[in-house]
């Protein structure tokens, strides 16, 4: 770092140093992260502990006594073991209150579950009884490995990388400074120049998050997020990549300089 500082001071002295602005634009995750193995095991343990320690379900409140609904509910429940005198219980003497074994978690089977499954088997005449099927977390673009799609790698941040025809390397888009414009304004305008105007972005701050010094060129990077729209350049290769793919695409030095800025 000190070497670079020394370089930059040297650059200040010469009148020919160039300021450029770059844009690190990301698409934030659309779905939550898949829990790791440790996380899912721990969450399961905690949820079982909580179930064991919860109060008895007040079925008398939800199912009025003597109604058909109550009948259907009680029919579905597993019968508890009652305490009978002069009987040996190897798993402990039953301790029932409100029909719940107090030393165990209460398992409740709801009548709705039965309705849902039965309607599912019959093909589901009514839309109200249809079981809700969530959308897949793996999309079509994921399977096709379409790097230009924003509908892939939903769990991860996606970053925009471009490759100009004249250059060899993939990198974040950079723009030359126009007279009188500010870093973040120029970066926003530059993105629309190369990728078309139909893109909605939000720049995090007007403070640059990184400077890359290459000889006389100083590139200041601004962070931004894409909220809607499409990046559709005419004469440019581009890709939306995750941090992992970023490592494979760019040069090693570029990765070490930039990796701390990416999620």
């Amino acid at each position, binding site marked *: 770092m000190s070497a670079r500082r020394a370089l*930059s*001071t040297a*650059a*200040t002295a010469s009148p020919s*140093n160039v*300021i450029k602005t770059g844009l690190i634009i990301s698409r*934030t995750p*659309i*779905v*939550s*992260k898949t829990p790791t193995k*440790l996380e899912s095991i*721990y969450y399961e*343990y905690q949820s079982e*502990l909580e179930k*064991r*320690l*919860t*109060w*008895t379900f*007040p079925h*008398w*409140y939800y199912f009025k006594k003597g109604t058909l609904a109550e009948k259907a509910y009680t029919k579905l429940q597993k019968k508890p073991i009652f305490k009978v005198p002069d009987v040996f219980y190897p798993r402990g003497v039953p301790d029932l*209150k*409100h029909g*719940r074994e*107090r*030393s*165990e978690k209460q398992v409740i089977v709801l009548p709705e579950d039965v309705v849902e499954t039965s309607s599912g088997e019959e093909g589901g005449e009514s839309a109200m009884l249809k079981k809700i099927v*969530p*959308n*897949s*977390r793996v*999309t079509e673009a994921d399977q096709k490995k379409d790097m230009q799609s*924003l509908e892939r790698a*939903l769990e991860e941040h996606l970053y925009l990388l471009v490759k100009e025809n004249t250059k060899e390397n993939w990198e974040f888009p950079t723009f030359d400074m126009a007279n009188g414009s*500010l*870093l*973040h304004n120029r970066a926003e305008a530059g993105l629309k120049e190369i990728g078309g*105007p*139909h*893109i*909605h972005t*939000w720049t995090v701050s*007007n*403070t*640059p*998050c*990184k*400077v890359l*010094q290459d000889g006389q060129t*100083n590139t*200041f*990077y601004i962070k931004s997020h894409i*909220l*809607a*729209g*499409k990046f559709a350049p005419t004469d440019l290769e581009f890709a939306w990549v995750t941090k992992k793919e970023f490592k494979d695409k760019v040069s090693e030095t570029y990765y070490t300089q930039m990796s*701390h*800025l990416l999620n």
Partner: protein
Amino acid sequence: MLKSTVFATAKNCTSSSALFPAKPMSMTFVRYKRTKGKELSSNVQKAITQMSVLSANRKQPKRLKLCPEDLIKHETIQRCWAEYQRDLRTERNQCLEAQYASMDEAMSVLEQLSPELYTAANKKDMKHRFPKEFRIPTEYPPNKIWYYEYQEGDGNTHKKK
């Protein structure tokens, strides 16, 4: 028991009255044990049921008593989780520190190169707000994952047309 007796008598009465419609029915009034007066009014009963939902009375499970071995297991699990969280925290803090350092470096370089740009980059824009289109990650994706049809000048909101 009581109800069934009454019902049976009533049934007998109807059948006998059907057989001999002209003859007036002889009725003997019997006073049974009083039951109705002791019943609570429906409003009171409703209030009691509602209170029973909130109350812990007879609804609490048995206290969880772990044997020494289970207790050790539980403590190990909790310690493992705490360390895992600490690792995540350290990693996050290191990342934040690195980001701050690189911002700091960029700003000091900018100060030397161009004081005007430096002042502009340091200025706080009070109108700069967090966008409402920003999406919070959900467990499953929405039906329309990305809004590609955004047109320039749609404003800050993108509504489905």
